[in-house]
């Protein structure tokens, strides 16, 4: 599960990762509210059906459904899973969210890649304008 962050150059990468970690830690320690989780489920369910209909920038009708049917056929022999996996998502409880955060979102279970801009060249425009 990979998250991508772009940040302002005046903030250090270490401070950025620390800000990310603080949010993860908050969920690990306090969990999330039922209301918050409910809102996420609404969004998840909406995205799921939108994904089935479209995909590939919208130019391929039913790309998402095709993709799930293919994967569930090749890896599970059960394309009908497309009709039931949403139930599992919607049954998630706040306690499970907190437990998953504690178990999996830990430093010894992750990798971080820093993509650092090379120093920008002196403005080429100035030379041309001289």
């Amino acid at each position, binding site marked *: 599960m990979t998250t991508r*962050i772009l940040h302002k150059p005046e903030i250090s990468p270490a401070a950025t990762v620390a800000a990310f970690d603080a949010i993860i830690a908050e969920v690990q320690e306090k969990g999330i509210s039922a209301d918050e989780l409910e809102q996420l489920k609404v969004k998840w369910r909406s995205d799921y059906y939108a994904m089935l209909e479209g995909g590939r920038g919208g130019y391929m009708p039913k790309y998402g*459904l095709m993709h799930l049917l*293919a994967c569930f*056929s090749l890896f599970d022999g059960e394309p009908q899973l497309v009709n039931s996996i949403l139930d599992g998502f919607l049954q998630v409880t706040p306690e499970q*969210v907190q437990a998953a955060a504690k178990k999996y*979102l830990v430093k010894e279970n992750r990798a971080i*890649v820093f*993509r650092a801009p090379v120093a920008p060249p002196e403005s080429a425009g100035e030379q041309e304008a001289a």
Partner: protein
Amino acid sequence: MKGPQIAIENKILGNGLRVVVAPDSAAPVVTVGIYYKIGFRLEPQGRSGFAHLFEHMMFQGSANAPKMEHIKLINSSGGVLNGSTMYDVTNYYEAVPSNALERVLWLEADRMRALKVDDENLNNQRDVVKEEVRVNVLNQPYGGFPWLDMPPVAFRNWANAHNFYGDFADLDAASLSDVQTFFKTYYLPNNAVLLILGDVKPTEGFALAEKYFGDIPPGPPPPFADPNEPAQSEERRGSVEEKFGTLPAIAIGYVMPKRRSGNGAPWRCSIRRSMADVPAGSIATLCWKSKSRSRPTAAWTIFLAITALRK
């Protein structure tokens, strides 16, 4: 809450080809897909990028459909097409007006049965792939980030960690015999699934599948990639250079449990796609804007983690 049930029928042909039909006559369009169970993970060491290079070769002509015929027939029918290579699958797909369904199945069956490859096409596509890498990765701001940057930092098993787009030296080393071997090993009806969605009746879909694909001979079941990693005991970090963009970027990746392991989940394929765009945009803002905006983002992250656990 019970969601709408999508009509699905599936069967397996005598040669092992799985066929799935999902009828929906709301619009006179059919989407056809063929997925082969072969992706980046299984390309041989010394041949990084080969699975994707091979995908390109599938558009270079087959026994009865000369080069460009496939694209010409789909486009002239008013359809669209493409293919893509992923970790464990490679797909080829078309969407056409439903009266062109049979044409599409004929084309897909012809290249499954008898792909036609030669050195000229291989050299040509090798150059096309290199250009694709130059455009999408080497000369693109944040190109390949993080999908190409994360694996070598996060993983130790070559199958998971290598350059999936391909080192140029490896692409150069690919030979015609590599292409033929790859085709014979993995592009088998018993290593694939055919999907027909949209304006088609299941009986019609299955009959056409049998007509065009039924006599393609199967082969020995191909090996599947071993994705296992040695145990990780500490955080791993790496850095790469950004040549064009001016903002620093960070990718943070957590290893999730194996699908369907214990109480694991069957949705690796779905999550991988959806996850990419959910936290990314909002996390960029979370560190610098109001704290209230940060919570939903964190919850998304965790929610996605827990969904990987449930069956």
